[in-house]
């Protein structure tokens, strides 16, 4: 029997800014195809966890592994190459670039041609560019953005910008996707659409997803597992039903 290796495994991960422990003793295991929710009140340290996992901050304690590969202390782009991609709470697109170029940029690590090929337009250049174009269009199709491929990213409406950001993250060909409040600022219809999208990409790409979300109904609907943090500490982890009835979680959200 083959032992299952978790896509993401963290051990006692934590970070302290001066004396303040923004996150401490964060342990999680995510397996292939799983969708895990990370919830907690404002300022609980959810985004900090993402920043730790993507190398924006260096963890001051603990370790984290992607498919058993130690990623501590790696730079952001190295972590992306290893296979963790993310979206941002406040959308960060390449606003002055075309929609399709946003996606193509994220394919960069797959583009092997060098400076000389680019400058003198070698065969490799044309071939790779054609392939990348097709792959980018395919990806945009999943999000129904193919008709807007030549629009400027900043001209898209809010909901589509969110989608484009996810499409761009998917282009990095990752094993673990971190979504930071993807439904923030969306109306119910847009949220429902987004849910569909998340389900589709999970089936199509077979990846693991870690999701930060405030919208409890969304989290309860789609996540298999939920982890709750408050003041940087994990206060509960388990199945959605267990979490809803956990007194500590209720207290954290509603107060005493």
């Amino acid at each position, binding site marked *: 029997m083959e032992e299952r290796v978790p896509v993401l495994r963290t051990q006692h991960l934590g970070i302290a800014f001066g004396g303040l422990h923004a996150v401490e003793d964060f342990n999680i295991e995510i397996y292939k195809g799983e969708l895990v929710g990370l919830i907690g009140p404002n300022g609980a340290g959810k985004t900090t966890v993402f920043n730790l996992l*993507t190398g*924006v901050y260096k963890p001051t304690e603990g370790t984290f592994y992607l498919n058993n590969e130690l990623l501590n202390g790696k*730079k*952001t*782009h190295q972590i*992306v*190459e290893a296979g963790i*991609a*993310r979206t*941002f709470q406040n959308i*960060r*697109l*390449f*606003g*002055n*670039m075309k929609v399709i*170029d*946003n996606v*193509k*940029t*994220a394919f*960069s*690590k797959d*583009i092997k*041609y060098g*400076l000389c090929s*680019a*400058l*003198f*337009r070698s065969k490799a*250049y044309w071939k790779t*560019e054609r392939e990348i174009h097709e792959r980018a269009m395919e990806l945009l199709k999943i999000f129904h953005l193919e008709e807007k491929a030549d629009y400027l990213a900043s001209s898209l409406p809010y909901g589509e910008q969110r989608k484009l950001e996810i499409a*761009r*993250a998917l*282009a*990095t060909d990752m094993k673990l996707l971190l979504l930071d409040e993807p439904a923030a600022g969306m109306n119910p219809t847009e949220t429902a659409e987004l849910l569909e999208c998340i389900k589709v990409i999970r089936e199509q790409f077979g990846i693991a997803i870690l999701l930060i979300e405030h919208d409890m109904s969304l989290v309860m609907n789609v996540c298999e597992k939920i982890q709750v943090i408050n003041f940087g500490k994990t206060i509960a982890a388990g199945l959605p039903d267990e979490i809803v009835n956990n007194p500590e979680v209720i207290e954290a959200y509603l107060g005493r």
Partner: protein
Amino acid sequence: MKTNKTAIRYAINTIALVILMIITFVIGGVDNNTIKLKIVPSVWQCCYLIIMAASLNLVLGFLGQLSLGHCGFMAVGAYTAALVSLAFQRAGVYDEKKGAAFMLVMIVSILAAGILSAVLGLLVGIPALRLKGDYLAIITLGFGMIIVNLINNIPFCGQQGLSQGTASSALYANGLGFSNDEKKGYMYVAVLAVILCMALMFMFVRSKFGRIICAIRDNEIAASASGIDVSYYKVLTFVFSAFFAGIAGALYSCCNAALATTSFAFTNGSILNSVFIVVMVVVGGMGSLTGSIVAAIGMFLLNYAIKNGTWVAALPGFLQNVFTYPMLVYSIALIIVIMFRPHGILGTSEFALCDIPKWPRMVASHFHKSDKEAEG
């Protein structure tokens, strides 16, 4: 379908460039004093201004980082080309400025200028590009000043070296410093250099490199979260841009009989300073190489008109004074452009020869749109 279009575009551009080269050869062959004394030196100046503007645009417009020491690289290029050519002359590779041997020396000098500039760009870029925004502007300003200051203090190329005394006449008599006749004869070299440099820069920005550096400009954090090694590409672009600044410097030393470091300072009386280059880039459009070409030629013509035009003398006293110091005009123009079009006149859009038939429609749709906005 798509590849077909690309092929047509390439064909049109190639034909246009070939026509340009033929015109250059024809002008270079005509014996006429107006051409020799006015047009040819202007073409040379335009050539190095275009390369300077476009190369700074890579850093300022595409990468989104303000470098104020760009003329420092040009200075390095100019001095390198001059010294290399003089060294070959002293070694007896060529006697007079014609023939295959001199041609070869010229090519080697120009390439050497580019390469040494690029090396310096690497040395400056690695530490400097760790900083961003205002701090990067300051540190590149500092490096630019240091480069100029060092050149001043190197005995064989400093203020007492190439700009005055024997070495200066040596550059003119034996090195790359061309007389008007030679400038006319070798004008095609300058034009060819511009075409090649611009082609390389276009290829650069129309490849993954261009996409990546624009992404870094738009959002550095998102770029690194898309798997891009931000500092690597920043330094690469900086070095690439310094290479072309060096080549521009080499062209400069070709068409000037003497070199002085004051020509490459951050600010000086003439138009050749780091700020004027910034003006050209911003006016043409940050992120538009064709814009840089147009702006470089346009600003050069404006400057030429101000410097040599008889209309200036017809103005009232104070205005005449204003035009004696044209940087005043350019600076005000720069501020006005920035106020109304923060990304420059062309913004990030390029224009292509094959798009010219579409222009009337584009202009019409633009006005149509503004009408709509006015109604709404």
